[in-house]
């Protein structure tokens, strides 16, 4: 098969580009440790979440901020529903600066999204599934939480806030 010289040069450069790009993603996972949201959160019965029967399910607790295993570790359990996050929408989620926070996110009704605007904290909230992801909050600040998956007629009103406060101002987890 006749392949023109420039054609083969171009093809080689293309393959190098592709491999390099896959390499950057691999480095991102191994170096800075950007983990993917996966199946480690487990499954949960969405009806029990909707009925607030948190003591009846494994792997999920009543919505709120909990102390984790280490001194600076926290666990945040978030339920999304039409059209709010709990916690987040009525009361902001509050965590101290310098903390490592593991989120457990699920939905009691339809598919929602959970995004801290302008950051790479981003997850789907799917009924029946628990999304588990860990975030480091180094500095104080306020982040907007947006539902980025269409979830019904009032989707555009589904938002919330997360505040990273000074450790001295932090009221503590449960």
């Amino acid at each position, binding site marked *: 098969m006749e392949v023109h010289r420039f054609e083969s040069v171009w*093809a080689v450069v293309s393959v190098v580009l*592709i491999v390099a790009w896959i390499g*950057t993603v691999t480095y991102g996972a191994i170096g800075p440790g950007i983990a*993917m949201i*996966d199946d480690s959160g487990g499954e949960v019965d969405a009806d029990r979440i909707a009925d607030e029967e948190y003591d009846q399910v494994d792997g999920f607790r009543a919505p709120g901020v909990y102390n984790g295993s280490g001194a600076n570790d926290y666990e945040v359990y978030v339920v999304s529903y039409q059209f709010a996050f709990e916690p987040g929408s009525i009361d902001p989620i509050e965590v101290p600066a310098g903390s490592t926070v593991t989120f457990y996110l699920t939905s009691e009704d339809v598919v929602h999204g959970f995004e801290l605007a*302008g950051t790479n904290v*981003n997850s789907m909230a799917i*009924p029946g599934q628990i999304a588990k992801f860990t975030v480091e909050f180094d500095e104080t600040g306020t982040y*907007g939480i947006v539902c980025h998956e*269409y979830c019904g007629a009032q989707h555009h009103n589904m938002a919330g806030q997360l505040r990273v406060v000074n450790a001295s101002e932090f009221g503590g987890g449960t």
Partner: protein
Amino acid sequence: MSFYEEYPFEARIVRLSFGVAFAALGVGGLLGMIQALHRTGAFRGFVSSVDYYTILTAHGVLLALVFTTFFIAGLFLWGVTESLGREVTSRRLTWTWFGLLLVGTLLAGVAILGGMIDAIPMQADVLFTFYAPLQAHPAFYVGAALIIVGSWLAGANYFLSYRRWRAENPGERIPLRTFMVLTTMLMWYLSSIGVAVEVLAFLLPWSLGIVEAIDPLLTRTLFWYFGHPVVYFWLLPAYLGWYTILPNLSGGRLVSDPLARVVFVLFLLLSTPTGFHHQYLDPGIPEGFKFIAMTNTMFLLLPSLLTAFTVVASMEHGARQRGGTGRFGWLRTLPWDNPAFSGMALAGLMFAAGGFSGMINAGMNINYLIHNTLWVPGHFHLTVGTAFALTAMALGYWLYPQISGKQLRLRGVATVQPYAWFVGMTLMSNAMHRAGLAGIPRRTAEPQYDQVSFEGVVGGVSEMRLQIAIGGTILFVSLLMFLAVMTATWLSGRDGAVLMKDVDRAPLSMATDGPRVLDNVRLWTAVAVVLVVLAYSLPLWSMVAGGPFDPGSAPIIP
């Protein structure tokens, strides 16, 4: 003889298909402009923010499903008929697929319209992706299924023609256009099984109350099994234009026929095992399968990068045949005043930009930054919204005279139209990408919140809104220009058409220069199936192992 004289029946079906496609394009485009004005806050008088989601659903279904499928069915019918030089084997089958597509469109359309009009006791405010547990009226799902089945039967026609041709021409290489149609359809058969299973086995029985609850993650996964390859079902017909028509319009020849076949084979192999890259942020799917999908997606860049080379090289060859010289000076001699040429050339240019933003989407960890933000529609308005849509318009200008016997009217308007599209899309898409970086979500009637403030990384948010509103309006004006040209041509009398053979020149490297194995579509289909099994069997099994309807969700009406 012109195509419409030689194949009057086929020409009529192509005209009808294009007619429905462009009507859907007009309505869908109008809704698009309304959305651009609504969500930016420029003007919110057309619809309420609740009805916004009804027109958003209609925009997606009309453009991504109806416009594309009808246009492709028409284009492929022309491509196979012309390149094999034979009529369709079954006219009844032809009318059947056309009828199924039309009835499917009407059913889905009425169900969607019911979301805004109280007199229609239906709704389908579930958007183009119709994620469960949001539930539409069963008519919507039946409509979607009929469109898919209609496209399958349209494909059966191409394969029947090919079989007859092969019996009469043993040992000959498959004509390039037919090869492109066959590989595209094989990819489509393989990938649209996902949405067919989703609709027929889960959504439809669930919406009829036969099944109480279905698994949102499983149905989502089946949707994306189809949801990414479908974009190649849109893209490959545009490639057919870029490979087999654009070089001739440039005044030259396609550089390499065998390489074009390699590109289409790669798309057949790699298009389907990629769907998990739409689910990078979904819980319930192990990281490894996301990584496999990413690797396949990245390697799909290869056929597109090869296409970029071949298309530009073919254009340069044509320009030099026309007397063009210099490193870039040859660009000036290209027929920029021919809208069929400029439309496809500008579509290709924008597709290059869309390809790069697509690499960001496909990058597993950088995707966190832009997932479900306005970046994503910014990306696909460059790809399906320009690479496909503007190419379809350009092909409309080129093909309609041949299938109707009518010369193009309003030539001046047609000459300007692709440039108007280019300007409008540049404004809208660049601003959407940047808004996505700021975290502004997609699919939202009012992306303005009391609790959230978006900070532009590049430029200010109000400037982005303005560009989106102005860009969206220019795009609609460009669309009106296109529809005016097509309507004026349609309503004019027959005055003799251009003979396509005049511009159909053989490639520099012929099909016979490539290895025969390229034409072995059975082999490539088998490899494609194996890749799909590798990518999907384990994760799908883990989802259905605990019961195909668990963890289940009952329907929720939006």
